[in-house]
């Protein structure tokens, strides 16, 4: 049941925050260097002393980490749906095993991605 609820929450969360965030990024890039600098300022790293910008950074970084987790959770859970759609995996033990594996895998994948970005690439 948790996996089903998470599928809906992550899907609809990405539908709003992911959709708007993705197009904000593309629209800023299409607007030229000044618009992209503004995007980076609010979404990732504001100038020191710009309190509203720094608050926006905290919010946007949490949203970005949340969105990557939502993506992995929704992707893995979606692949599970494909298996269930063909009529397989309904045995209680199998179903329970894959539900737990998906929740664990999405957390591990999210952690791996951000360790790579923040530590590996020094972002």
């Amino acid at each position, binding site marked *: 049941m948790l996996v089903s609820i998470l599928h*809906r929450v992550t*899907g*609809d969360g*990405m*539908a709003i925050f992911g*959709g*708007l965030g*993705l*197009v904000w990024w*593309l*629209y800023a*890039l*299409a*607007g*030229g*260097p000044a618009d*992209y*600098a503004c995007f*980076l300022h609010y979404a990732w790293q504001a100038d020191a002393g710009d309190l509203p910008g720094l608050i926006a950074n905290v919010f946007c970084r949490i949203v970005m980490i949340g969105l*990557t987790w939502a*993506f992995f959770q929704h*992707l893995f859970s*979606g*692949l599970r749906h*494909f298996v269930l*759609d063909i009529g397989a995996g309904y045995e209680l033990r199998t179903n329970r095993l894959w539900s737990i594996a998906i929740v664990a895998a999405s957390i591990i994948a999210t952690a791996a*991605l951000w360790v*790579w*970005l923040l530590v590996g*690439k020094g*972002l």
Partner: protein
Amino acid sequence: MGNGTKTGQVRGLGSAHGGTHHWMMQRYTAVGNALLVTWLLISIVALPSYDYATVTGWIAQPIVAVPLILMLVSVFQHIRLGLQVLVEDYVHDEGLKFASLILVNFYAIGTAAFGIFSVARIAFAGSAL
């Protein structure tokens, strides 16, 4: 679907009388998303840096711009279908449901259009921006 017996005429249509079209479209776009969003995520992480020239130079390539536009089509169609189910499940007042579904359509198609236009502009403008 047959046209002989009464059962044959309605088989596969379900209570919505729309058949399985919505359900199938959600699956078709899901496959597109699984491939294209995974590709985008890996590509973004693999970019050497995130400064303006690097990112726009990367997007401007046809091999990137075209899949990116296809991804926006697939993703926002999936978003439209997904939000539609959310509205149908939780908004029970018919008038409010109608208004909500209009809003869902405006949001999904409008945001997709902004995204596609942006990718096209980056690709066609080159270094002119």
